[in-house]
């Protein structure tokens, strides 16, 4: 039985129930991919069944299309003011809050949902603060103005962990600083429902792209893709596959976030590392003089 039908139906208007309470068929959701702000089916036409729902099974071509969308969106997103990015991410928290019932129906516990929403808010606040914490003036020995500032590394491919809190904990730090992401989701229904929150939150199309399916099939293409700058392997369970993906990433010297040793604890304070691992430091020198 599709999970979506677990959502309680609203009460029927009075006077329409004479012929029995269960005549109305619920309208089911079609779970598709999320690429460039749209919800396309897989170009391959493939689906797989999850809890009775037919879910799009992303292909290599879908992964490449998602990279194109992410690359196209990146300069605009990075060029938006940090204040603006922070507000957009805060808006995501609002939209997730509004979808609590839907996430609950997908099996996300109330406590986890609280943590998910609070994490969005936490990261939203970082948008216009991370540069001050990780950058600043450098006291060089000479008549120069010298300043370092973080910049997004570009397009990040993410193998996401299965829980909603895990998913949010890898997407938010990637995009808050101006990167765009191609996310290989583990739980398709949760991920696509989150994508619906993005689609209604002023997150520009292409900033987050979500592919559902088998990451073991799509991740190697992203790991070797020459237009991907970084690879987050947090959701990879097999050490062997993680090593293989890291080797593939070496071909273009991608920044790689390895799966956390001993498993990730997403309830802990994430610290700065999830953000700084996907940032470059740019240092600018200029002479001082009259």
């Amino acid at each position, binding site marked *: 039985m599709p999970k979506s039908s677990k959502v309680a139906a609203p009460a029927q208007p009075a006077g329409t129930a004479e012929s029995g309470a269960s005549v109305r068929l619920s309208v089911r959701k079609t779970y598709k991919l999320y690429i460039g702000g749209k919800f396309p089916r897989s170009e391959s036409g493939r689906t797989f069944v999850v809890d009775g729902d037919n879910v799009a099974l992303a292909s290599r071509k879908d992964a490449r299309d998602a990279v194109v969308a992410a690359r196209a969106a990146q300069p605009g997103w990075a060029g938006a003011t940090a204040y603006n990015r922070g507000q957009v991410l805060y808006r995501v928290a609002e939209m997730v809050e509004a979808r609590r019932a839907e996430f609950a129906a997908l099996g996300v516990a109330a406590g986890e949902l609280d943590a998910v929403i609070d994490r969005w808010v936490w990261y939203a606040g970082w948008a216009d603060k991370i540069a001050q914490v990780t950058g600043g003036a450098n006291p*060089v020995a000479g008549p120069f103005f010298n300043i370092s500032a973080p910049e997004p590394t570009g397009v990040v491919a993410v193998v996401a962990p299965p829980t909603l809190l895990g998913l949010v904990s890898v997407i938010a730090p990637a995009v808050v600083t101006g990167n765009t992401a191609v996310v290989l989701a583990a739980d398709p229904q949760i991920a696509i429902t989150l994508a619906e929150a993005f689609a209604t939150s002023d997150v520009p199309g292409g900033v987050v792209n979500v592919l559902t399916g088998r990451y073991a099939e799509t991740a190697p293409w992203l790991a070797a893709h020459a237009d991907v700058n970084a690879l987050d392997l947090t959701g990879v369970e097999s050490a062997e596959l993680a090593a293989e993906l890291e080797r593939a990433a070496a071909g273009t*010297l991608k920044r790689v976030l390895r799966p956390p040793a001993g498993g990730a604890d997403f309830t802990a304070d994430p610290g700065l590392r999830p953000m700084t691992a996907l940032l470059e430091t740019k240092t*600018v020198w200029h002479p001082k003089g009259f």
Partner: protein
Amino acid sequence: MFEYAPAPESRSVVDIADSYGLFIDGEFRAPADGDAFKTINPASEEVLAEVATAGPEDVDRAVAAARRAFPAWSALPGAERSKYLFRIARIIQERSRELAVLESLDNGKPIKETRDVDLPLVAAHFFYYAGWADKLAYAGFGPDPRPIGVAGQVIPWNFPLLMLAWKVAPALATGNTVVLKPAETTPLSALFFADVCRQAELPPGVVNIVTGAGDTGAYLVAHPDVDKVAFTGSTEVGREIARTVAGTGKRLTLELGGKAANIVFDDAPIDQAVEGIVDGIFFNQGHVCCAGSRLLVQESVADHLMDSLKRRMATLRVGDPLDKNTDVGAINSAAQLARIRELSEIGAQEGAERWSPPCELPERGFWFAPTVFTGVTQAHRIAREEIFGPVLSVLTFRTPAEAIEKANNTPYGLSAGVWTEKGSRILAVADKLRAGVIWANTFNKFDPASPFGGYKESGYGREGGRHGLEAYLA
């Protein structure tokens, strides 16, 4: 060009032994299988010394020594580690003339540069990181920053002692122990540094030096008891190291190649820009990963700028590295000279126009005259590949957007230069350039407080400044 009488620096300030062993656990020892190689002076091809080749067994011993030294070194109060590094900085200052001459002999770079750039920066780097050793909790990497363990470090031949300082100083300040492999063609200053460590009474095993070629580096990088790998060198080798390290959990930082754009706008002060262009590509014989090897000139000032640049290039003095008048020294090795020659020939074959000033080159040794190519397009190999020599490729542009597009049209992203009198243009262009270091109205400036490192295929991680600590903290 003015005639100058030669002003040679004295060789007698440095005493080079006939042969050197490996520095492991605080003493020099012979390699397990007795293999050795010769290091030569590239300006004369004279053999300077015979140096041990470290094989797998030697690398094993060096890593074991570093591992044994790690618990005590990392447990030392930061203030104590700090004082060791201050001692090292002071000893380098005291021995800087000797080390400068040594570096010029083994590398071929002019004494003016080793004396005024390399050695002062080496000392400054140790001085800078010495002060961090007891302040790590304030560095922004969490309340209880811990060292990683044994660091395996592989460095290039272009700035031998400076690259050693960039690697060793932050590693020791953070409580790691190191095994360092200097480049095959420039091992001597690292071996002299071993003596600096001895003078500073650094505990045995905290710094180990293994000499050799690529094989020695490969053993070190792949060694299972190395926790952290740091490499400076070519992008090709960097990729190989990243593959080797994949799946091992070792931490890795890479500082790799570059093909920096040096962008000159029509309102730039041309004479200053010319100085910056010359410094950008002819400093250190162009053996600089962040060299300004692609000059992008706005079309309207290109002719004027090229006239000035050629005039200035004609005054560069190429020759004896130990002569204090020398601007451009010897190419570091026969292999590097062959590569520079090959790419330069390809540049001419592909249709770019080649020019060098009249320039008398010494008969012995490895030499290459400062060279500029005009009429270069983005498709030319001399515009795409790192030459790592005194060869400048000149391209033109009409609009700022075109300049940015061309500057970023490379897999590298280490550095870039911008020349314009307009402040807002500097800031806007600097924002758009995908490179780790941007020099505006200057070029090739370095400082221990200033983070250095690349975007894209120029590698990852930063060396220098507070940022440089991160690579050595768990």
